[in-house]
């Protein structure tokens, strides 16, 4: 059977090996965290998840402490709240105060904690980290002065993506996340790191100034690239896609690849076809829908009348929807009258 314990006076039960944090989450008890991610190994870096356990001399990190029988846990005490507030203050003491222009404003965990703890001024001040941007890659923007060293990007790249493109180099104040030898990032550009980053340290380059949270509508849909069928959330502002994200409760577990996450710009490409075109004397000329539809229908009808329906054929697409493919073959079979219809499954 499971292990019984109490959290904030509530009797709870969980599997042997579970941590205090996991158990609390299962019972809807909130413990603040910055470095924890349920998809990644526990890390114990940010110290926000400190809780008091009866019999333990000091507060302990709930994300790395396994539960034991009869354990009594308190998640909110004056002492842990003071410690949490201090942690946030220390992080903010070396964080640029540029929420005004930050891509993540409104969707930043650090900003959120600063808000809840009412941290407008700071008891701590001193040297701040300065970094020069050096990324040549066109996908990810790294603003390392906003990095809080939660290590989620390092862990997701290693544990989930199996790439290990980055790690934490140097120690103490000099510690920073970077590729080996501080080279430019050269990876699969999946952007998993961007999706787990709690602050504005990592963002998508093409997201810049497309909109943050105000005026954004999220539309859940299915990716149109490979057969994985990942679920995407398109963040739409006006008639434009500002960015793409994915929710962890989907069958793709919230993970995406470079194409799914960053490959949507073709939608607004100036090369998009915007009007029907009819070729006359070897040159395409613009036409209205009425003209194009009746011209195509006449030509199809003539071929069918002169040569029979089997002189017509249709090639449909594995890129189009089920409904479009269904209608397409129905058109070829029921309207034209031929079974000459195929698609590109073989390629």
């Amino acid at each position: 059977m499971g292990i019984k314990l109490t959290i904030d006076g509530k009797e709870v039960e969980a599997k042997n090996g579970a941590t205090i944090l996991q158990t609390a989450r299962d019972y809807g008890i909130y413990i603040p965290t910055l470095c924890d991610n349920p998809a990644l190994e526990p890390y114990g870096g940010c110290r926000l998840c400190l809780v008091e356990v009866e019999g333990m001399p000091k507060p302990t990190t709930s994300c790395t402490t396994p539960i034991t029988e009869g354990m009594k846990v308190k998640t909110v005490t004056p002492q842990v709240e003071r410690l949490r507030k201090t942690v946030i203050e220390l992080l903010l003491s070396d964080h640029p105060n540029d929420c005004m222009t930050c891509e993540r404003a409104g969707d930043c965990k650090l900003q959120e904690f600063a808000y809840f703890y009412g941290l407008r001024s700071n008891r701590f001040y001193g040297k701040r980290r300065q970094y020069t941007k050096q990324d040549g890659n066109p996908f990810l923007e790294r603003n390392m002065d906003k990095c809080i060293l939660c290590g989620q990007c390092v862990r997701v790249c290693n544990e989930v993506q199996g790439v290990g493109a980055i790690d934490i180099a140097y120690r103490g104040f000099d510690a920073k996340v970077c590729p080996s030898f501080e080279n430019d990032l050269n990876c699969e550009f999946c952007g998993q790191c961007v999706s787990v980053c709690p602050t504005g340290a990592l963002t998508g380059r093409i997201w810049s100034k497309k909109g943050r949270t105000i005026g954004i509508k999220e539309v859940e849909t299915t990716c149109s690239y490979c057969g994985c069928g990942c679920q995407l959330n398109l963040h739409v502002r006006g008639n434009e896609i500002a960015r793409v994200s994915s929710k962890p409760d989907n069958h793709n577990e919230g993970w995406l690849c470079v194409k799914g996450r960053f490959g949507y710009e073709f939608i607004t490409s100036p090369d998009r076809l915007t009007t029907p075109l009819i070729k006359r004397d070897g040159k395409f000329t613009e036409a209205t829908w009425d003209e194009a539809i009746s011209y195509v229908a006449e030509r199809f009808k003539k071929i069918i009348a002169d040569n029979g329906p089997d002189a017509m054929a249709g090639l449909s697409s594995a890129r189009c929807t089920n409904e479009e493919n269904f209608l397409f073959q129905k058109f070829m079979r029921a309207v034209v009258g031929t079974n000459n219809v195929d698609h590109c499954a073989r390629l």
Partner: protein
Amino acid sequence: MAGLVTVFGSGVMTNSVPETENNDVIFVIGSNTKENHPIVALRMLKAVKKGAKLIIADPRRIPLVKHAHLWLKQRHGTDVALINSILHVMIKEDLINKKFIEERTEGFTTAAAAVEGFTPEVGEKITGVPKEKIIEAARIYAAGKNAAIYYTMGITQHSHGTDNVYSLANLVLMAGNLGRESVGLNPLRGQNNVQGASDMACAPNVFPGYQKVSDDAARAKFEAEWKVKLQDKIGMNAIDMMYAAEAGKLKGLYIMGENPVMSDADQKHTLHALKSLEFLVVQDIFMTQTAELADVVLPAACFAEKDGTFTNTDRRVQRVRKAVNPPGNARDDSWIIMQLSHAMGYEMNYADMSEVFDEVGRLWQNVAGINYRRMEKGGIQWPCPTTDHPGTPYMFKDKFPIGKAKFSAVKFNPSLELPDDEYPFTLSTGRQLLQYHTGTMTRRVKAIDTAAHEAYVEINPADAGRMSIDNGAMVRVSSRRGSITLKAKVTNVPDVGVVFIPFHYSEAAANVLTNPVYDPICKIPELKVCAVKLEKIQEDKNHAA
């Protein structure tokens, strides 16, 4: 897919992607999963982290090899010999599931006889894989309690692609690895809606739901729903269409969202065929190489601009939702088809796409239980016959659609064009991570095009050194069909004597070179093996050009 239909009665992924993480043996053959199905690869890595053994059989050093316990580097086009040798070892060492073979299969004896000559020594000679590794692969696979196989076009794009599939089916049948969670045989689908386009019967021999056009009862059902007389004769497939166009028998072609000039084997032939048509209509979102040849081009909406559903690789029907408006006068493909239909005297009236899907459900039992209202909570995997059915994560639990699964006696046939003195290299083609298919979409994404701007040919360092080809130098690659000029990428991904070209780039289209010979059953072209030669382009020539 025809291969799996013959063996099981249904040609789909037997498992679902989330089940992958509970595999204890993963056998990946002819699939560069990390680049072409990145999210499936993540589940594989998750399984490996949990202790699964990963076997890769691939002639190229694909990214997943880094995580593999065993890498079988077979020569291009020798998959049947490799699998037959593995089967030989399994039979000889008594690693087969006799109960499963007895109860659920037929034809074991002839299949076993066919692999008798494929000792690991013979296997090694044909495939180049050391016999110890063949034996080890057989033992690891057979020892798996939750073993699953994953494959893609590296298996199917051969003149003997169906044989490749048959031999993999033999492997799962001998091990009894079917009909349970996390065990099975999984063809990963390359495009977002290949499964759906097949299900919806954009195919010359069947109506939606794989119901044969020659079956009177099926035809009667569709005639009643559509209120029109339908043909019972099997139509032309895409390959036949091109030959019929060249012969002047096919006059009119309507292409929706396809770019055969780029994607088909032997571009010269495709161009000639399309130019021979009397009337070509192309409906697309961009002026593709194919659309350039059209008499009429109709502007369509892309996935973010319309409602509908896609069916992904594990039979999961999922919603596509409109997020933005299409540009200018571009319209949904469905609207265009309905308008055309109306102009030709047949009314298609649907208030929205959910009504179209409901019609599919009325005609095909396997999706009868799926509707837009249910899909609000997420995708549903077919078969799903009733609205209270939860969907089907894995197939063939109690029986196969054809009753007993069929073993096949599979002979090894080499690829049809092998290297010789004149064309000494084997060319393989495929995709890379950043670009997608014929590049019409990804090449219009600035970031992607910056990072993967140019066509290239991967050459092994030994070959490059011998021919004094530097990384980044321009080379001419020629086959019996034509030649292209592109940059050399010197890398140990391909083996010595092998080159690889991604087919995304129209300015150096790999399919200028590929061999238009086809699997006799599936009609899949042999895009994975043909013979080419390489020539270094001299500096001054390059300058003059």
